[in-house]
């Protein structure tokens, strides 16, 4: 009798325990088909009492919607956020400090995370998230058009001069072919694309009018003035710009590894990827460090469960390249072959380019800094200002924000 009672009590306790452990977390992301969306669905299916609701929010609205939600305390438990936006949240205590949880974790090794992504999610020496992946931009080129223009597809342009010469040789207005497609839009994408050129010329976001940066801007202006890039470069994002490359309407394109899957399916020609051309032979390399970070909001009711998802994410990180063509942000993860030889060839290029990729910020006021840079290059490209004057004005504005 006693035994029966004990068994019943244990069974009851177990049911109660299971009922209590049923936790639902919310995750906001720009795309449910990105790694965190896919992994969150898998994680929900594991019998651990945790379910994650994934909500998709347009990239352009992600920060604004999240800030609004945070202001009214209706924010999600977890978010995947663009890395330059991370500091605004972590510096104000919106994100959970996970430094100690990471130190106690067997799955996440903070020291294995590359320096760039790690600094984007750190504030005051503490960790406020986990990198989803890393990406950077490089130069895609259409090998068939290279051959047709008498250029060697095996030695793509390596310096700015060669790049400009190639763009001139490849542009073919009669057949609706531009030399190059990129994005100089007045949005974070434009900043993302411009900063590497400024950095290769010796500048940086806090020294945007350094000597030489005007040359970068002049190069961009030449591309537009000579009709080597579509005038819509000013209003088009990277995804749409690269779409014109895939359609054969641009012979080169500057974009990141997120394009690889679509390009492999859409592009009806032979293509390759090479490092961004440097200013002069032997000059410094630079590229943009992109992609998102995963973070837990400080006001979540379930920090342990949310952290369990970050651990699950990290345990799956070697899938990030072959399944999503994104570069892992941790050391020691080999880029597994995808079965597509062009994508596999691109893997090595992007991995090498990533070594010279630099952070935007981190700074809590990044959107305003970025805005000043956008105003700078857009005013030059539309002919409203001279390069050096526009960069000086951008520098003044950025100095005001930084101080």
């Amino acid at each position: 009798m006693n035994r029966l009672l004990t068994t019943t009590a244990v069974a009851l306790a177990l049911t109660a325990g299971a009922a209590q452990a049923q936790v639902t977390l919310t995750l906001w992301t720009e795309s449910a088909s990105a790694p965190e969306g896919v992994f969150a669905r898998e994680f929900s299916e594991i019998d651990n009492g945790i379910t994650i609701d994934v909500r998709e929010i347009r990239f352009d609205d992600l920060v604004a919607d999240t800030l609004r939600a945070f202001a009214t305390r209706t924010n999600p438990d977890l978010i995947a956020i663009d890395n330059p936006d991370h500091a605004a949240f972590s510096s104000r205590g919106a994100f959970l400090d996970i430094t100690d949880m990471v130190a106690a974790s067997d799955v996440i090794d903070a020291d294995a995370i590359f320096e760039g992504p790690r600094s984007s999610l750190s504030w005051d020496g503490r960790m406020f998230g986990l990198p989803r992946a890393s990406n950077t931009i490089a130069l895609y080129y259409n090998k068939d058009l290279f051959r047709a223009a008498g250029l060697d597809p095996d030695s793509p342009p390596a310096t700015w001069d060669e790049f400009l010469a190639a763009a001139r040789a490849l542009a073919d207005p009669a057949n609706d072919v531009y030399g190059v497609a990129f994005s100089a839009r007045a949005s974070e994408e434009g900043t993302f694309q411009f900063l590497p050129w400024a950095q290769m010329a010796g500048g940086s976001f806090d020294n945007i009018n350094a000597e030489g940066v005007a040359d970068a801007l002049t190069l961009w202006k030449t591309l537009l003035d000579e009709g080597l890039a579509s005038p819509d470069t000013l209003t088009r994002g990277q995804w749409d710009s690269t779409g014109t490359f895939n359609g054969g309407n641009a012979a080169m394109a500057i974009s990141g590894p997120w394009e690889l899957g679509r390009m492999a399916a859409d592009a009806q020609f032979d293509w390759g990827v090479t490092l961004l051309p440097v200013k002069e032979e032997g000059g410094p390399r630079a590229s943009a460090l992109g992609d998102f970070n995963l973070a837990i909001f400080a006001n979540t009711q379930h920090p342990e469960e949310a952290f369990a998802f970050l651990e699950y994410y990290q345990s799956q990180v070697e899938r990030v390249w072959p399944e999503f063509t994104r570069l892992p942000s941790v050391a020691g993860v080999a880029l597994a072959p995808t079965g597509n030889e062009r994508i596999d060839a691109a893997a090595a290029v992007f991995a090498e380019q990533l070594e010279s990729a630099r952070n935007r910020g981190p700074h809590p006021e990044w959107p305003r800094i970025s805005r000043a840079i956008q105003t700078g290059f857009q005013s030059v490209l539309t002919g409203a200002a001279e390069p050096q004057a526009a960069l000086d004005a951008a520098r003044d504005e950025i100095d005001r924000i930084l101080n």
Partner: protein
Amino acid sequence: MTRLIRSLRDGIGFDTLLIILALFYLFVFAGLPLIYNVIISFQRVDVFSLGTLWHPNVGFENYERVFNDPLARRVLINTLIFTIGSVALQFTLGFAAALFFHQRFPGATWFRGLFLAGWIMPGLVVGVLWNWLLSGDFGVINHVLKSMGWIDSAIFWRSDTAWSLYAVMMANVWYGMPFNMILLSVGLAAIPDDLYEAAELDGANAWQRFWTITLPMMRSTIGAVLALGVIFTLQQFDLFAAITQGGPAGSSTVAQYWSWELSFREFDFGRGAVISVMMIVVVLFVSLIYVRSTRAETRL
């Protein structure tokens, strides 16, 4: 007590009750936000203090920063051009279409109904459609203009600073025209036919009938349509977001879009509110015209 109940059921008390309900609704959902908007235009509000009710006072600093912004002049001029241009074209085309469909020909009412199809579409959808039409390299509009031989090289409607504002205006005129047409059609239908018959007997030609009968009889409708047109145009946001995002280099930024950019791109709600306050003043003024013209309507 019974008098009060009787008055509530049938009499002045019932009217008062209805008015109080309406006023209460207006005060809570329109009045308070408006007042709060004016208050935060004098405060420093960023996202992390957005949730608190009260923020640090900065006096006229937000106003000074908005007026001294290099973009301010451009935005003011753009807003004037966009509003006046859009309303004038929407009204003229809408009036012309209304007069056309007022002629009795087979299918006139059907065609008029079809015109409304554009107006019932969400602004963002219209914006995306026009975005494709206006695209520089592959846009339909450029293709048509080129094959007609009217232009030699493509016009980059969205990316050319000389065109970007007019590209959005074109889309907005198309979008708002049917609404103007329907309101003006209602006005036309209300004019008694015998007036025209009498004028015709007196020997008035079509032009004279238009100037001496149609226009004067439509005065209140026209006032209302123009006032609503200005208000709707000052609200137009979706088309800017979908077509130019206010660019390139701010060449198509108008007040309402700038206000949104300051608030939700730069997260400076104080400066965003400054622009809203100034727009409220303009809309209040236009609303006065609207109220006056509808008052004349009830007198008729």
